[in-house]
């Protein structure tokens, strides 16, 4: 997303304009992603209704087929179907699932709590792990420890979550009986999958944090603080942690948005019934109303998280509240946000 013209820094009015511009942009993103997915689903061959009607064993008459297509609104041209969908959407109605035949809003509402719990616990674990590793990697007095902590993220990223997940299940649930995945919902049930899911989330976060913590440690104001005789711990907490957190916040924001929709495999492994399992069922059955509902949810989340992250920046780093000219200057020294996307930052950090 390109930076909006209005800036946060120049007074309450332009702040409002900034927020409004970002919200406007968000709505455009939402609308476009909805439209693109709608058309893609339309272009894909097959849907569960036509699959049922064209079942060679069923032998429905053409009249029966036509009436059923009318019932599902599938007899209309694509633009009319889009229009009807949008008109319904304006009333908060996402339509009915083509497989479970229940309102899509109900379906998402039923699955969302389990996913939000998992995302929240995962984020917490990931933050703790990343903070611990970063502290080790940058401040541990013994170099092998610093090296080890720096190398851990790469290791975490290279083991797929299902490998760790299935091992955790086999050992701790099936063999030792420490927890059950039978009804793995609720906060307590979220702990084992979150512990697994937190590893790949923490990995890129840790890399970025380590990279920026090291950079911040070289900043003149840190040297100044150190020369004042500040202890290592206070130095880290008071002067290094906050500005180093900036790119981390971006990455975490993206990770949270992804957690809501991207935990398909971990949900399957741990038998949790959240958005991930709804996605899997909807994708394999081409249940387009459900898919569109989830796209809308995911796009809204990404837009919201991005907005929140951008608004958080000036709060975290006072330098970004300064005059436009100066802030540009400062952002050279301490990048205002992770350049473009999280993954690029990770690559840079590796290099």
């Amino acid at each position, binding site marked *: 997303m390109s930076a909006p013209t209005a800036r946060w820094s120049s007074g309450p009015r332009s702040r409002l304009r900034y927020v409004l511009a970002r919200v406007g942009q968000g709505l455009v993103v939402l609308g476009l992603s909805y439209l693109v997915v709608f058309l893609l689903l339309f272009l894909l061959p*097959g849907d569960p209704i036509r699959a049922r009607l064209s079942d060679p064993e069923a032998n429905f008459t053409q009249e*029966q087929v036509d009436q059923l297509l009318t019932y*599902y609104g599938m007899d209309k041209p694509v633009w009319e179907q889009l229009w009807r969908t949008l008109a319904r959407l304006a009333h908060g109605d996402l339509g009915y699932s083509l497989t479970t035949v*229940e309102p899509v809003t109900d379906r998402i509402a039923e699955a969302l709590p389990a996913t939000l719990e998992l995302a929240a616990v995962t984020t917490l674990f990931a933050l703790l792990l990343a903070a611990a590793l970063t502290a080790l990697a940058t401040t541990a007095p013994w170099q092998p420890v610093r090296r080890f902590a720096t190398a851990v993220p790469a290791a975490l990223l290279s083991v797929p979550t299902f490998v760790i997940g299935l091992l955790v299940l086999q050992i701790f649930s099936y063999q030792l009986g420490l927890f059950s995945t*039978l*009804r793995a919902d609720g906060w307590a049930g979220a702990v084992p999958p979150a512990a697994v899911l937190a590893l790949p989330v923490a990995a890129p976060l840790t890399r970025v944090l380590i990279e920026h913590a090291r950079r911040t440690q070289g900043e003149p104001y840190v040297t100044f603080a150190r020369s004042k005789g500040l202890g290592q711990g206070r130095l880290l907490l008071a002067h290094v942690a906050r500005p180093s957190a900036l790119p981390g916040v971006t990455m975490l924001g993206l990770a949270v948005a992804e957690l809501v929709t991207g935990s398909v495999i971990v949900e*399957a492994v741990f038998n949790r019934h959240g958005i991930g399992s709804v996605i899997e*069922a909807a994708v394999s059955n081409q249940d387009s109303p459900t898919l569109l509902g989830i796209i809308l949810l995911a796009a809204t989340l990404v837009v919201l998280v991005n907005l929140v992250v951008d608004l958080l920046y000036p709060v975290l780093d006072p330098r970004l509240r300064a005059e436009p000219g100066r802030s540009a200057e400062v952002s050279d020294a301490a990048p205002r946000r992770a350049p473009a996307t999280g993954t690029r930052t990770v690559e840079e950090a590796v290099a």
Partner: protein
Amino acid sequence: MTVFTRFRRFAGALAVVALSVSAAACSGGAAGPGEVGEPRRGGDVIFLESGPFTSFAQQDLRLWQNSSVSVNLFDLLLFLDPATGKLEPWLATAWEHNADHTEFLLTLREDVTFSDGSPLTPAVVVANLDRFGFGDTGRGYTPSRPQFVNYERAEPVGANQVRIHLKQTDTGLLNGLSDLRHSIVAQRTLDLPYEQAADIRNAVGSGPFVVDSVRADTEIRLVRRTGYNWPPAAADHTGEAYLDSITYIVSGEASSRTGLLLSGQAHLARDVQITDEKQLQDRGFHYYGARPFGAIRELSINPTADDRIADVRVRKAIQHGIDIDEIISAIYNDNWAKAEGLVQRTTPGHIPFGDEYGFDPELANRLLDEAGWTGRDADGVRTRDGRRLSFTLYPEPNWVAAVQDAELIAIQLQRIGIGIELVKLDRATYTAVTTKPENVFVWSHQTAADVSQLWARYRSGAVGGNTDPAIDALIARINTLPVGERRTKAVAEVQRWLLDNALVVPLQETQQSFVTAPNLHGFRAETLGRSALYDAWLAG
């Protein structure tokens, strides 16, 4: 979905390792399966279902995951005994028909009530039959096809009888009434629009269990219905069901289901990995390979897909090039069986087709040579006039070892010089792609209470690509003959025609796996292989 595929492979491998480790650690732990004891009342059973539940309207009950639940909620007019193939009384105590099978008179039990308290009456049975016959397409209800294609109307007769009128002779109707597609629901459910009837909480039946609670599409709890007293005569006991409750929980990952069973967290699972079957059995778990009535699992060949496959020699080469014994021994185990006829062994009408359609690579190679496919390209695939003898095969979406089967078949056909490109598709796309006229192969394993419901795809002009009206007459004859020797002969003729024309490659008996815990007894697979738990009980 490549990550997912890798995940499934890894999960499978891990489950095997874990199983063998735990089997070694706990060998000799489980009680011998010999002493079973007397059935006892009580017990709460956890049933692991492999797919998320969808709609519980009558038209959607044939989906496996839904039927795991629905066979315990609903009753049928007639019971087709899976052991004998004979019709037995259920909601209907007696039945008769006229000589040409166009009028049927059913006598109903008079003590049956639905779970909302309403009685089973001739009127509500007629309303159910009308829904099967006509559907209500404007409201989303599809009619039952092909079973009720000849239905004309039904009428109540007196206080406890129903007369069904057909447009033409159909000797398969009564067997069709024992198909769970024709579960009988209360008038209250029939009155609902489809979107509401789809919700299991609105499904009012007369079966041995009733719905207690539902969580999204992933958990359904049934409890014993008090006062139930009308099981089919073939059941092991009378009166209420033994179990207090059954909780169905969706557990989509096969290795999880095995793990949950082994660690004692669940009592029953549908669908386990073939590689887990033996280890579970060794640990005292009961394996049930349910063989539903209907057709075997087969690979159909569309003769009109293109000019290469239109040559019967090419189709016959495919038929003789596939080695079912190798498939069974490499991918399955002795819980599974090679097909002997196009109809399942227990289904009335089954007749073996003999040895002449089996694996014979020499014959296959000779046929392909005769057909002019004598060249070879760099991959070893046969060519003729610059064209390759290569086809696309889409693995079946709803089969336990679909991909492994398809991969091995591709290897086997490659050995005789036929190239096979495997393309995996999701369920909806699979149907869309395989019903196209230019598609060559389609898999099927159709369950059916009566043989007359099979082979609709081979009628000339239907989706199977066949244009020969000879087969229409052969298939139509089955519907005019009552179950018995003459009908089985008619089946044999259809079978011979399909195999001689090499439109079908018979594979294995259709089978659905269930595993129950060592202490869960009395599990029954009903006619179509679904999990009937009326007789099930938990030992202490």
